[in-house]
């Protein structure tokens, strides 16, 4: 492998340097029908799962075919997306916030061939490359984080559980039978790069063991005061530790009973790892939403305190999610989001209908907001 220079000269880093130019201008990338009708759209309709039409006051129409996909994507796969976009969409394509791929065409007769082509492309193991769906009252792509493919703090994988969950939930990706949309999200640790805390169903990686202390290295690798200040429960204090050679080293001590396993100390100090094959696993949360429709946005609530990491397919996690989805599909009223349904029937009923065990872990004991989640009324259901 010979080093290939881009033209950058390390001896003169400022020579011809271009900085602070920001992203490309979105207008360059708009399909002509979008550019022409921007701000003029009258209404839209979902013609079938994964296919939308938007109609403009100019009379123009744009048809969108939405395909799911793993957000972890190779350049070979992106080039295949480009091939399709060039064949059917004059080289235009877009991605959605939830990692779906949208192919847009300007007339209805172009939809069927495009859809057929997308569904004909399969991977050697039989998986769809471009499943069409993810619209309306169903389940669209799971937004997620990096997990074991690239992150240093995860308590579970991301792409693996997402693939496993989407396989189990696939029928609802291609159908619209639910009372309302149902958003599933995954974050592989509490840092929540994926901000899953307002999802109908959230899959969250969580540690359950306090950090190990690499005393010999903590002072070398970390700013100890920063590690101490990083702890939200003040469980970490400075400590002098006698090393094997008898010398005293500066390190920290952790009050394990105060640890809430957030991993913030590890973020600040690599000498305090938390990861553990048995300790780490999954928390399931439910009932959140971000839309302001009918009721205010809501946080997801913890409904299962812990499920072990069961690579490669996380069966208990996916079964539990499927059970919640089915209970919701059967019992909720039209338009009711999962959280609205749980609030209407009462959480005691939610646990019953979803066949979930209620344990002490699910009662909030973290600071002031906890009190507001206890039941301060005689109104409850037996």
């Amino acid at each position, binding site marked *: 492998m010979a080093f290939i220079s881009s033209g950058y000269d390390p001896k003169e880093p400022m020579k011809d340097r271009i900085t602070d130019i920001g*992203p490309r201008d979105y207008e360059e990338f708009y399909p002509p029908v979008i550019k022409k009708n921007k701000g003029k759209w009258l*209404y839209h309709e979902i013609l079938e799962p994964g296919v939308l039409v938007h109609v403009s006051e100019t009379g123009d129409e744009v048809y969108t075919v939405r395909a799911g996909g793993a957000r972890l994507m*190779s350049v070979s796969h992106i080039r295949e997306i480009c091939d399709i976009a060039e064949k059917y969409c004059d080289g235009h394509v877009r991605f959605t916030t939830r990692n779906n791929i949208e192919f847009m065409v300007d007339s209805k007769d172009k939809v069927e061939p495009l859809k057929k082509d997308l569904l004909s492309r399969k991977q050697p193991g039989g998986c769809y490359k471009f499943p069409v769906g993810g619209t309306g009252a169903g389940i669209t792509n799971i937004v997620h984080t990096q997990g074991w493919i690239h992150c240093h703090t995860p308590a579970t994988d991301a792409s693996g559980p997402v693939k496993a969950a989407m396989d189990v939930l696939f029928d609802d990706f291609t159908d619209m039978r639910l009372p309302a949309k149902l958003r599933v999200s995954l974050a592989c640790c509490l840092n929540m790069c994926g901000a899953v805390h307002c999802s109908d169903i959230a899959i969250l990686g969580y540690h359950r063991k306090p950090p190990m202390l690499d005393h010999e290295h903590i002072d070398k690798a970390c700013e100890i005061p920063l590690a101490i200040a990083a702890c939200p429960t003040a469980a970490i204090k400075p400590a002098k530790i006698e090393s094997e050679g008898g010398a005293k080293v500066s390190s920290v001590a952790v009050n394990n009973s105060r640890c809430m396993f957030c991993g913030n100390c590890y973020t600040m100090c690599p000498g305090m790892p938390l990861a553990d094959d048995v300790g780490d696993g999954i928390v399931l949360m439910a009932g959140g939403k971000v*839309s302001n429709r009918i009721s205010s946005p809501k946080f997801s609530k913890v409904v299962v305190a812990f499920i072990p990491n069961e690579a490669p397919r996380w069966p208990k996690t996916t079964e539990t999610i499927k059970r919640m989805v089915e209970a919701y599909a059967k019992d909720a009223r039209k338009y009711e989001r999962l959280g609205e349904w749980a609030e209407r029937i009462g959480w005691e009923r939610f646990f019953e209908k979803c066949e979930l065990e209620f344990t002490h872990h699910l009662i909030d004991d973290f600071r002031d907001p906890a009190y507001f989640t206890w039941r301060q009324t005689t109104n409850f259901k037996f």
Partner: protein
Amino acid sequence: MAKHKTPLLDQLETGPWPSFVTDIKREAESRAKNEKGIDFQMPQDVCEDILGVLELSFKHGRTHWKHGGIVGVFGYGGGVIGRYCDQPEMFPGVAHFHTLRVNQPAGKFYKTDFLRQLCDLWELRGSGITNMHGSTGDIILLGTSTPQLEEIFYELTHNMNQDLGGSGSNLRTPSDCIGAARCEYSCYDTQALCTHLTKEYQDELHRPAFPYKFKFKFDGCPNCCVASIARADLSFIGTWKDDIRIDQEAVQAYIGGELAPNAGDHAGRDWGPFDIQKEVIGLCPTECMWMEDNKLMIEDKECTRCMHCINVMPRALRIGEDRGLSMLIGAKAPILDGAQMASLLVPFVKAEEPYDEIKEVIESVWDWWMEEGKNRERVGELIKRQGFQRLLEVTNIKPMPQHVQEPRSNPYIFWKEDEVEGGFERDINEFRKHHQR
């Protein structure tokens, strides 16, 4: 013959959903064949080692990635995340495996010539594996070595007119919903505002000077498709002040069943005939709708613009014409003190270039947060610590009932001395003349 055996990952190659494992194997194969004769700048078997290290994590139940070191491009403090493998001898191809965040175009619209250029660059100088896209919105290029960083940056800026995104304690790459480009609900041009502010605040984006991360997200309407209300330090949510526009003929068409409610959202089940009373009027959270002489009436003054009726009958009801946006502040995920939803700060502002009113609010919030915020304290946490009143003071925004869900239920008001007649200084001896000890 694969370099590493991956019996666990192989089990993710079946089922209907696209398999990332198969996709990485495809890239591994493409690099092994190297039909184009590329002089790869990362090891040719890098994708094999990605699979190998991931298989090991599946076996161990633990990650094998270490903290990032300080790597980046000259003059920027963000945009690159350092990443090293903790088993470099077993997986030399991914021993150094840094991430680049590339600032996505607003709305995530692309032309294939741009994507192909990006693919060529990343095949040559990186692992060939990406995220389209990361959670914040960037194009994520996963895995390259330190010497390649400047080369990639040079090619991005010189050949593609394209910059990096944010990471660390700076303005993170702003992102938006599809907005007016293809959505009739959008109350402002999300792409225009997102791009304008991204370009305006390039210094804040590339050179970390904040206590912690700061996110902007732009939702065209209260449906909040980019979840700004849950995850942005400042969220910009489209809204309107005047009346919902009603097409009474279309209302009748929904009632008569000629138009499918919800734009066909619920077509997968037979929910029975559409019932406007039950499905729209009865579910209106402010009870501001009724039928009169076969016409749908709305008391718009009482409407809180939740979007339900518009979502159900998009051909009959349209957003108003006096449009702008609401600014909400302080959302964040749970680290550290629990999750926070964004709180309403500016009920209504027009979203028109040059967006001066919006920038005034942004900059006054930043001045305060940079002065008072502690290390790794999000602005939402600072508001909790110093009070919403303090936020109103620093932004010079008048308190109004719209700012609260309900007024406080305790009377522990921190009266300021200048609010109380005569001030706080009093003469105890004068008091004692009338009140014995």
